Each structure stands twice: as structure tokens, then as C-alpha cells.
């Protein structure tokens, strides 16, 4: 039996799409600063990137609060259970029309691979971007009508880390965009993140004890 489930709550969808927009915008302006192309013009790219970065950090603060106040953080704790099955599914099962090895429910929205990837994103890559970005930003800062600075030997390391992280974020977005087409239908996952609702199978009997 299928049932319609309200799986992504309003704040979660708001967070997801705002973050999607901000990351794409940060990547776009960031790589203009990086010298990869010219669109807004360097000065505007910097101002926009900084503004979007501040917005992103505000969003992150709210979202951390949301994760803990709703207990949703538990969804992102990595697990090794079923990980092999999930890998096999992506590599082979999917082409044989095998069923998804891990059952999706409101309480467990993510399969083990998603858990690992999103967990890394939350605790490694986004913090990497934020920390290197904030250092980049406040390496010099105004102070009492003058300019002060933190004691850092130039931007080389910070910029290398920030750019490295940026490439990883982009690779993530590319793969993410593809993987959301692997739901029950091509648009199932997109639809769910837009409307909040997804049709989920009833839980298999053997897990109902």
C-alpha cells in the first residue's frame, strides 16, 4: 500500500531551497572572484559573495537550531548498516529494477550513503567553507576608524582551502542533482522537496514487530 506522507516540513523546505540558491550563488560569484569568468564584475562579485555568505551563515544558525529543536539531527548520524546493500543497489540493483534496499520513512528519510554524504557536508565541508570564508573575510577588519588584522601569513592557505571546498561543493551539487532523479520516478524526490509530500510504501511487514 502507498500512503501520502508529509515528509519535508515547511522550514526544512525553506532551508533546503534557500541553501540551494545561496550555494549556487556563492559558487557563481566565488568563481568570478577566482578569475574563472567575468559576469557581475569583480567588485560586485565580491560584494554579492560577501552578502550571500552572511545570509548563508544566518541561515546556518537557524538551521542548527532547527536540527536540534526538532531532533532531526538524528537522521544524519552515519550508520554502517545496509551500506553495502546501498552501494550495490546504485552500482547494479538499479539496472535490474531491484527494490530500494533501505526503506524510506518520515523517521528515516536518508539511506546510509546519503547519511554519510550529508553528514560530511554538515560537519566537514560547510564548516570548511564557513571557517575559511570567515578568515578570508575578517583577515582584515575595520576597528576604531582604523584597519586591524588577524595575524596570518597571507591568504594563500585560506584561499587554497576555500577554493578546494568550493570545487567539492560543486561536485556535490552536480552529483546531487543527478541522484535526486533516482527516486520512484524521476521527479518523485524533486516533487517531495517542493510540496513536502511524498508517496511512501507502507513499511514492510517484517520490520513491524
Amino acid at each position, binding site marked *: 500500500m502507498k500512503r501520502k506522507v508529509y515528509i519535508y516540513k515547511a522550514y526544512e523546505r525553506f532551508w533546503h531551497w534557500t541553501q540551494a540558491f545561496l550555494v549556487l550563488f556563492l559558487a557563481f560569484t566565488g568563481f568570478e572572484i577566482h578569475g574563472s569568468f567575468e559576469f557581475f564584475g569583480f567588485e560586485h562579485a565580491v*560584494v554579492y559573495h*560577501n552578502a550571500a555568505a552572511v545570509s548563508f551563515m544566518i541561515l546556518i544558525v537557524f538551521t542548527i537550531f532547527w536540527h536540534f529543536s526538532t531532533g532531526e539531527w538524528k537522521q544524519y548520524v552515519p550508520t554502517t548498516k545496509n551500506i553495502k546493500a546501498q552501494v550495490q543497489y546504485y552500482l547494479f540493483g538499479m539496472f535490474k529494477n531491484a527494490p530500494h534496499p533501505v526503506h524510506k520513512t518520515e523517521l528515516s528519510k536518508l539511506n546510509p550513503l546519503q547519511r554519510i554524504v550529508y553528514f560530511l557536508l554538515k560537519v566537514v565541508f560547510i564548516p570548511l567553507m564557513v571557517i575559511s570564508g570567515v578568515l578570508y573575510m575578517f583577515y582584515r577588519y575595520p576597528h576604531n576608524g582604523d*584597519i586591524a588584522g588577524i595575524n596570518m601569513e597571507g591568504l594563500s592557505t585560506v*584561499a587554497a582551502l576555500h577554493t578546494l571546498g*568550493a570545487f567539492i561543493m560543486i561536485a556535490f551539487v552536480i552529483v546531487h542533482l543527478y541522484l535526486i532523479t533516482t527516486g*520512484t*520516478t524521476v*521527479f518523485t524526490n524533486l516533487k517531495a522537496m517542493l510540496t513536502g509530500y511524498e508517496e511512501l510504501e507502507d513499511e514492510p511487514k517484517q520490520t513491524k514487530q
Partner: protein
Amino acid sequence: MCDKSYNKKTCKHVFLQYTYYFFMKKIFIILIIINAILVSGIIYFTKHQKQVDALQLLQESYSKPHTPSVDHTKFEILQKKFNSPQEVTAACLSCHTERGKEVMNTRHWKWQNEEYIEGRGLTNLGKKNILNNFCIGIGGNEQSCNRCHAGFGWADSTFDFHNQHNIDCMVCHDNTGEYFKQSGGAGNPDPSVNLNKVATQVGKPLKANCGYCHFYGGGGNNVKHGDLEDAQLNCSRDVDVHMAKTGINMECVDCHTTEKHVISGKMYSVSSTNTNRLSCTQCHGNTPHELSIINEHTVKVACQTCHIPTYAKANATKMTWDWSTACKLKNGEPYHEEDSLGNHTYLSEKGTFTWGKDVKPEYVWFNGTADHYMFGDKVDTTKPIAMNTLRGSYNDPAAQIVPVKVHRANQLFDPVNGRMIQPKLFDKEKGKGALWKDFDFDAASAAGMKYIGQPYSGTYTFVQTESFWPLNHQVAPKEQSLSCKECHSTNGRLANLNDFYLPGRDQHAGVELFGMLSIILSFIGIAIHASLRIRAHKRQQTESKTIEQ
């Protein structure tokens, strides 16, 4: 690419339905919220620091004309007939009794100063004992060069620096515009000058007073500095926002304030220490920009770097000087050649020149200290010899990026003794070894080196030299200041300043390689995976069709 449970039609239908739903309803709300967040971010970053008012106040206060407190025509002592310029000075000193001692303590009088120079210690340094790469040095050429000395009669090493009456008050304080010094007259006024008229019309130094020497260094207008020339007596804001006749029309001494005749500000062609300097921030403050990120640049970038995009804006300045071609004669006579703008490109006396107009500066790190080629220094000729060295690097907290004019020359060198040669250039008569009379490098080198007490082996050659002239004037209107891209790009103005990471110019090869590979591999992985999915999907469709049949 739709899954088996839908056929193509429903698939398209669902897609359209949700695109519509998304665009018409959700995106509206989402966009409003995103915008709110973005706007708050932008506001955070563009906090205005009411700098416009500050600039206006400065403009007002500096465009007020100066009213002198006395009228010198009323002083009887200035009415008498002056037989020599020294008598004028004596008259000045009869009222301004202590000023003579002050002047005698300044660089304008001594042409050198005791300064601490790293690697040399406490050193008396100035035009008396350094060489440059224009007319090289004053030693033996005092009658000509010392026309710009603030004194009368420094014709050779016997000049009396302790006689107050030798001070030339008029060259700086003449307000008639009629005072000038005799060519080759060792600083004495031209005999045609009406000393009585000048003496009764003295006042605060005007642009023309400072410019009388500082515009014409090197033997012609704008030859040396590139950012100081007689066009600035009457120019538009495009040439110089401070000195513009149609702008606030500032005098040199408005910025170069003076205490006990010591004038603030210094030129590193002759100075070495980070003292008594003038800076833009003394009037404009340390954070004059609206954007904080621009203010933050001032830690490492001097104001001049962005605000003097080009120099020699009105008239050309000398960029290179090749002494080695001098001394050619036509029918036994010296000759000259000119370019289309009337600048000398060749003189038998001096050699070959190139000129530049609207020149983009070069950029160096500078911490306010410098070194100079001094008499007797031995040099390394494997690279161009720096006649002055501006010190600093990225890691030096006192250093900033400054714009400079680099003047390059090819000049006399003694390969046996390893020293730069001071040739004797000027004399009133032939046969005394002066290059400008006898056109003989060897004789000029021998006479010049003997005069300054340095050995000369009898062999001369020519070596490449450079001198560095920090640019401080000809500040452009703010709309013309450099845009970010001028430096934050691969082939920008800072392409040669490589000791630090500059965003937009620099990339880490490893990071780029890793990044491009991960993106390409992502796409390849997706392509393989997607094609396998499509194939599986098609196979299933044909399978289910065969089952149906």
C-alpha cells in the same frame, strides 16, 4: 529517462504540473525570504561612513585664500638699492633674526642629511655624495647643477656653508614670479632680476616657487619625477585633483607643512628614512572609503596605487637615458634630434632618450626606507644597478604597494675598480675635461672622479641602471581610480609582484587540478550511470512488451 510506472506522456504532464506549481506559488514566497536575507547581508556590508562631508570640509578649508599679516613694501630696509643678493638676505635676517640658522639646518641648504641606513649605519647622505641616472652627480658640475641650491655661489667644494648671507630667501619666497637664477651661475640670481621689487613682494611659497626647482629636475620640465611639472600650475582636475586651478587649487605648502623651515615630505631619490613623511591619510584619515573591503586594502596598498592610475598626464617624462651614444658630433659640432612632441631624443651632450606620456606606473613594496648608490660603492653588474633601492616586501608589516616611475639608463662605469663613474659634465671653458665642452668620455671620467676623490682606472664602459621614483602627485578624480580588475587578474598591474597570494590573479595548481578532475569525474560517472539506467529501462520495456504479446 522516466521510470517504468509512467509512460512518456504522464511523465511530461507531472513535470509541467510541478513546474507550474513551483513557479506560481512557492517561488514567490521563497524569493521574498531570500531577498530579505540577501538585502540584510548587503546592508551589513555597505555601512556608509559619511565620508562625503569630510571631503567637502577639506575642500572648503583648503580653498580659502591666505591673507598675509604684513606688507613688505612698507619696510624701509627693503627700499634701499641692493648691490648683491647677499644684501637682500641680510635685510631679511635683520627682522627674521633666527630664520637663517633654521634654514642652514635643512636639506634645502645642506643637500645631505644624517640618516640611519640599514647596512651602512649612521650616514651623511644626499646629493653631495650619491649618484643618480640622469645627469649623474653634482661633483664637479656645481656651477650648473647647484642653480637649484637654496643659496648663492656654491660653485665648488670651497663654498662656505656657514655664511648666513649665502642663503637664497627669494627663490622660495618671491611672489612676483620674476625671480630666477642664472644658468650656470651656481645659484646666483640672474643679473636681470630687479632685487628691490622681489624683496618687497615676498610671502608664503607658491607652487611656482617650489616648482622652479622641483618641476625641472634633470634639466627640463617633468624630466625626473613624472608627477611634478609646470602644467600643474594651471591644470584641470583630471591632471591633479589637489592642484587643479578649477578645483581647490592647493599650494604645495598646504600639504608640505613646515616647521622651522624643515618641510614635511621627502623624496626617496635622495632620502632614506621613514621620518618626516607626508601621507594622504593625514588629511583623509585611514578609512576614507564607503566600502570596508576597500579600506582594508590600505593595510597593504598605498592610496597612491589606486588613485594615480597614470602619470606624466600633461607632458611627457623621461623614461630611459642612454649615455653611451653621447659625444657624437656633426661637422665637429654637437647636434640634437627631437620627437614629434618637441622632446629631445638625442643630444650630443647627453645621449639618447625615450619619453613617456600617460604612463602606467610600476609597483613595488615600500616600507619608507631606502638605500642609495654612494661614492665608492662597488656594484654587481649582472643585473641592473639600483641607484636607489626602495625596501620592503609582503611580509614586512610596514610595507605597502606603491606606484613608482622607474627611470632606466645606460651610464658610465669603471670595470676595473667596479665603481660607477662621476663624469665632469659642465665647465665654462674647453679643455678642462667637461663632457659638454670636450665630448670625451675618458677625460670627463678622469676629471670627475678626481674631483670627488675616487679612483679611475682609465677604462670606462656602460652599465644598465635603474632609479625608483615613488609617485605621489597627479592624483586623479575618484572616478578614474583603478578598478579591482586592474590588479585582481592574471595579467594585471601587479603581475610582477609575486611574493603573496592575490585573489583573482593567483591559483594553486594542485587545487585547480583536483577541482577540475572531481567535476569531470562527476560528469563521467553520471553519464555512465545514466546510460546504464536508460538501457535497463529500455530492456524492461521490450521485456514487458514481449510478455504482453
